[in-house]
């Protein structure tokens, strides 16, 4: 039963990681790519860590907080890292895809002094 639960979380996590990487391959520009990748792979890794937590809760003698620490840190740090990369690439001027509908920050960018 516990083993089935662990396997289920593991497969869910791997599924979301692979789907996120598919977005990294298929999306047209860097903004769409990180938008697809960052959320999907966060969910995937968190699910894998939940699977690990369940497994070691039942198989190991001592309860370890390592998975929970990694989980909290990843959940805080992954969006921050994605935002840092995206902000830097927008300010540097990485071109948007030609299918982009609108750019709400266009005027702010032209008056940005940095």
């Amino acid at each position, binding site marked *: 039963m516990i083993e089935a639960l662990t396997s289920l979380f593991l497969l869910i996590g791997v599924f979301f*990681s*692979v789907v996120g990487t598919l977005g990294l391959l298929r999306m047209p520009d860097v903004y769409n790519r990180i938008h697809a990748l960052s959320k999907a792979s966060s969910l995937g890794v968190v699910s894998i860590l939940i699977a690990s937590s369940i497994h070691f809760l039942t198989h190991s003698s001592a309860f370890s907080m390592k998975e929970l620490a990694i989980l909290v840190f990843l959940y805080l*740090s992954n969006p921050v890292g994605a935002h840092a990369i995206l902000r830097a690439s927008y300010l540097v001027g990485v071109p948007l895809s030609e299918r982009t509908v609108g750019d709400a920050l266009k005027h702010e960018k032209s008056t940005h002094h940095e």
Partner: protein
Amino acid sequence: MIVWVSNVSILLLFTAILAATYRLVVGPTVADRAVALDAIMVHILALIVVFAIRESTPDYLDAAMVIAILSFLSTVAIGKFMKKGVIIDRSAD
């Protein structure tokens, strides 16, 4: 059963790492390569955790923690480098 599922997971995560490596080599801009490196780091973390489950030893999780911290720091450092050309600047912003 858990060993079989872990083997399948490791195989799929390797496929994901190969796909991210393709984006790392091909990717037209620096930002694409940074995103691909971030993806590779996160997938290696997942790979280590799956391997720890497969071998049933929680010792590998220390390496996973170190890789999580390194992944975040390197992503932020690449972002700052792309924006300003320096990583550590002491000027008041």
